[in-house]
């Protein structure tokens, strides 16, 4: 989230799209209701009339998987109704109360000129730069035109970059983009944007999305009221937006909408991902993904990051805060390899594995790992509290793939479907040669540690009780394993032992592995005055103290400052993360003295955008930052350069300082599948034609070529299906199915069917229904409701069904229930590689003998 839970109360318009937070993040209701009671309007766009829709003022049904058409229509509406009629007036100096032109012109890249080669071809549905052979884009023509160039001043501000101990690299050249502040140049982002979305008229959007025109117009009119300076609109989303072959473009689409409406960085605004796992924010921050590195840096690879020098030259920004990346990567290496990391050996960079990254290289992300198991490439597999035999798409393919493993290690609290895949109803254990280890883990209140919520708050969990029997915290398991692996390599040698034996692993207190020294590593420390072996640490007060010369070490620069009290380094309660002052001095629910929010305790990201070019807040009663004429008055921590070398920096237009151009991107060269969001149908679509362009599904979609994906056509499987969760259960049910109270409250999974479809298929409430496609077939209970309605898509009736997915065969409270993810397709988004769980095709029938 760019915002946080308690900020929901500050909004004027709530838009839920792809989230049912009242059901799935119940605590959100507390804060949404505060806004609603204050008079905020509440809109829900969802295929199903959800519990959240029940709370809202406006409910607008949408066909699963058509979100970009919906957002594109909103852009079109904004351009036609707010920007075009008022732009001339604004440029002539007149006041425009309905639209925030100052934000659009100064804080976004609307005025930037794009490369003359930039284009989009409606007939093919392709942007400039597409390569048919690799199904990828070159982003060359998506960049800006350059006005002038500027070099780093290595004798002044950037002297640190050439100091002793700093690895050598060629410093970047800042290319000042060409701009047209009147927005008239045909190559400016705004004009290209306007042209691009002229196709997204309201009739076309309604036909694609299965919407009713009147409702859609009301949604657009209501939400775009937040474009007025001082008003805030908030988008809340979850997996309904991300689990698509264009999921990353969906999140881009929301960001673009919020930039157009001036809603980013203001109280009650933002782009807010309501994340679903207790520490998924932490795991994302930690970069526990193929290509990622802790704290949003990128992992070493075989192309643009094949050496430390190349990493520095490809990753360091020419301007903005990411000019500091050399400090972050060197400090990360220094924490990783300790004294073994020196400037002479590139701080150990080559000991890190390099991810194969040529466009033709095999992918190693989640979906692909199962192909690689089937091929015998991946032979050993660790599952840390994750249950892919239940949660991964095309789950029967996952079971068969895992049967090829030599060994599997599952660390969990219950014997999950993954731990017991070899005894799934459709498997023959005697034919499966995988050795499976089950390591029992401690529950969350049986161990101490740091956790992050969706609003980026780091909070501390104290240990309340000892784990039952022999269960252990995961940190202890890691230490036992690592110690034994190191012992083996020391004793026997083997394939290059250096990356293992040079790794620093000294997180012990009184000789026992302890999470607190790991917290020091995450916060960062001065190397010369710290000695973990002696339990001594000189903590950094924040990331501004980090250096690129090896004098500081830090695993996670964005967390720096969360654990910075060197006087009591072993006491979490004495650290910023342990703060428990719930007095809210801001009046906006910032709770700045409760725990710690990364980065630097900022509660609302991009908060410079909450004030105008003179530093005056757009909404006087919701002040986050204000320029007094002499200095910045800061209610929240500044997410911009408020002072330099102790001198206040007067307001300027650099409001997004994590980007090199420091303005928000309506158009971005950073995506794999297009510089602006364009609508494509899902991998499995009920229609034969894309009404908006000539490409049916995304030209860059991943993994459709795997034989296991088994595409189904609408002629065989005419019904759109989506999956969702209920409040009583959680994900694959490993925890919630272990709780009798929750099993009693929601004892089964089901398929939700409209009355019309039920009548067509002669299905009665409580019947057993078979839901099937090319990948699988599951029998579940029928729930017939008014919450789902057939839609008119491309002028014809389209049925949708929804499936919950919390049950399966494993566990004492388990059922014989089928695994719903046997049905979902293992195709993915080209940016995030996230699977498309939320829009696929099925057919349904009453199961034989299934009548109640």
């Amino acid at each position: 989230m760019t915002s946080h839970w308690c900020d929901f109360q500050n909004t004027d318009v709530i838009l839920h799209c792809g989230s049912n937070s009242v059901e799935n993040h119940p605590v959100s209701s507390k804060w949404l209701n505060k806004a609603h009671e204050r008079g905020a309007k509440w809109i829900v766009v969802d295929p199903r009339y959800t519990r959240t829709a029940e709370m809202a003022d406006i409910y607008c049904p949408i066909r699963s998987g058509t979100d970009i058409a919906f957002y594109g229509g909103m852009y079109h509406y904004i351009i036609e109704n707010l920007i075009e009629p008022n732009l001339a007036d604004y440029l002539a100096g007149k006041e425009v109360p309905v639209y925030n032109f100052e934000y659009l012109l100064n804080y976004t890249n609307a005025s930037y000129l794009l490369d003359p080669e930039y284009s989009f071809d409606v007939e093919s549905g392709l942007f400039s730069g597409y390569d048919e052979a690799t199904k990828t884009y070159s982003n060359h023509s998506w960049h800006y035109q350059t006005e002038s160039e500027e070099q780093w001043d290595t004798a002044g501000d950037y002297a640190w970059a050439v100091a002793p101990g700093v690895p050598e690299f060629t410093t970047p050249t800042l290319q000042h983009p060409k701009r047209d502040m009147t927005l008239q140049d045909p190559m400016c982002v705004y004009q290209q944007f306007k042209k691009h979305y002229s196709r997204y008229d309201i009739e076309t959007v309604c036909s694609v999305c299965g919407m009713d025109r009147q409702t859609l117009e009301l949604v657009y009119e209501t939400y775009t009221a937040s474009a007025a300076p001082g008003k805030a609109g908030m988008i809340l989303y979850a997996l309904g937006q991300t689990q698509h072959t264009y999921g990353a473009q969906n999140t881009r689409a929301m960001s673009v909408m919020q930039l157009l409406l001036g809603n980013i960085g203001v109280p009650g605004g933002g782009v807010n991902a309501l994340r679903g796992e207790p520490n998924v924010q932490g795991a994302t921050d930690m970069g526990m993904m193929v290509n990622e590195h802790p704290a949003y840096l990128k992992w070493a690879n075989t192309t643009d990051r094949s050496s430390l020098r190349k990493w520095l030259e490809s990753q360091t920004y020419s301007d903005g805060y990411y000019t500091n990346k050399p400090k972050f990567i060197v400090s990360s290496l220094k924490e990783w390899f300790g004294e073994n990391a020196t400037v002479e050996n590139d701080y150990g960079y080559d000991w890190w594995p390099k991810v194969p990254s040529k466009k033709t290289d095999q992918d190693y992300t989640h979906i692909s790992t199962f192909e690689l198991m089937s091929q015998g490439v991946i032979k050993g597999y660790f599952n840390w509290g994750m249950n892919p035999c239940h949660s991964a798409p095309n789950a029967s393919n996952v079971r068969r793939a895992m049967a090829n493993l030599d060994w599997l290690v599952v660390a969990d609290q219950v014997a999950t479907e993954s731990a017991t895949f070899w005894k799934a109803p459709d498997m023959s254990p005697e034919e499966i040669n995988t050795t499976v280890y089950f390591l029992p883990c401690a529950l969350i209140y049986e161990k101490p540690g740091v956790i992050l919520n969706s609003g980026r708050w780091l909070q501390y969990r104290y240990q309340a009780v000892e784990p039952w029997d022999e269960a252990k915290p995961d940190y202890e398991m890691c230490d036992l394993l690592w110690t034994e692996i190191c012992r083996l390599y020391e004793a026997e040698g083997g394939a290059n032992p250096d990356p293992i034996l040079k790794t620093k692993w000294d997180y012990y207190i009184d000789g026992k592995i302890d999470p607190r020294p790991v917290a020091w590593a995450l916060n960062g420390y001065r190397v010369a005055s710290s000695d973990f072996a002696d339990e001594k640490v000189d903590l950094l007060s924040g990331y501004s103290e980090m250096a690129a010369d090896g004098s500081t070490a830090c695993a996670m620069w964005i967390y720096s400052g969360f654990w910075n009290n060197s006087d009591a380094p072993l006491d979490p309660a004495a650290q910023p993360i342990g703060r428990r002052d719930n007095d809210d001095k801001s009046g906006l629910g910032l709770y700045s003295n409760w725990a710690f929010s990364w980065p630097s305790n900022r509660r609302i990201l991009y908060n410079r955008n909450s004030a105008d070019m003179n530093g005056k807040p757009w909404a006087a009663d919701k002040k986050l930052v204000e320029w007094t004429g002499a200095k910045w008055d800061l209610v929240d921590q500044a997410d911009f350069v408020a002072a330099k070398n102790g001198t206040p920096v007067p307001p300027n237009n650099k409001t997004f300082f994590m980007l090199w151009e420091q303005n928000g991107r309506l158009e971005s060269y950073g995506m794999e599948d297009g510089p602006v969001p364009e609508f494509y149908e899902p991998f499995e679509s009920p229609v034969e034609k894309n009404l908006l362009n000539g490409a049916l599904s995304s030209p860059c979609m991943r993994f459709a070529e795997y034989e296991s994906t088994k595409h189904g056509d609408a002629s065989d499987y005419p019904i759109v299906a989506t999956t969702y969760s209920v409040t009583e259960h959680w994900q694959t049910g490993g925890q919630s199915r272990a709780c009798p109270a929750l099993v009693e409250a929601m004892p089964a999974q089901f398929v939700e069917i409209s009355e019309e479809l039920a009548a067509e298929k002669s299905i009665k409430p409580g019947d057993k229904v078979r839901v099937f496609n090319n990948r699988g077939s599951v029998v579940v209970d029928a729930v017939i409701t008014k919450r789902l309605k057939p839609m008119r898509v491309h002028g014809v009736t389209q049925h949708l069904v929804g499936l919950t997915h919390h049950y399966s065969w494993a566990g004492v409270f388990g059922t014989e229930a089928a695994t719903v993810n046997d049905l979902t397709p293992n195709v993915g988004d080209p940016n995030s590689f996230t699977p498309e769980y939320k829009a696929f095709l099925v057919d349904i029938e009453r199961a034989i003998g299934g009548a109640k």
Partner: protein
Amino acid sequence: MQLTRRGFFKSVGAAFAATAAFEVAAASPALAVETSKEWKLVNTEEHTSICCYCAGGCGSLCSVRDGELVNLEGDPDHPINKGGLCPKGASMFQLRNIVDPETREVIKNPERVTKPMVRRPGGKDWEPITWEDAIKEIARKVKDTRDATFIENEGGMTVNWTPGIASLGGSQENSEEEYLILKMMRSLGVVAIDNQARV
């Protein structure tokens, strides 16, 4: 450092029990009737925690007596949930202990596995294994797989990677554990690392 009410409780540990009962009861008319010596939180030690389900980050209070969890409820001082918990959060207690439907006694949750197990090739069931043996066997398998598949150099470039091992998960762990898992896997040369954030 400013001490809040809970911060104060934490810092004085188990000795505050009587004060706690008073404090809580005084703050809540609904609880005031429970100040008798039968009150279930008498002589308990409070530990604050954070929920294990969605990423709301709701605070909870774990009350412990004689080393055993006797109650789990929402943390009233927590600014996000202000004492409230959803159905899942409110039943976190049951992850550890449940009431036996037959005897009405509080027992360990039977669904939970609390000792290491191994399933051998071709086996139809689990077998018990000690931690020591499990760790030894896993480390040996990791080493054998790494040694057999490791690529140190490819086309003149040092790559130091292990295609034969994959690691999945992390969003259920605390951040320190995430770092240790990542550090272990990367230093082994693993690139096939993913977690719940991918899906």
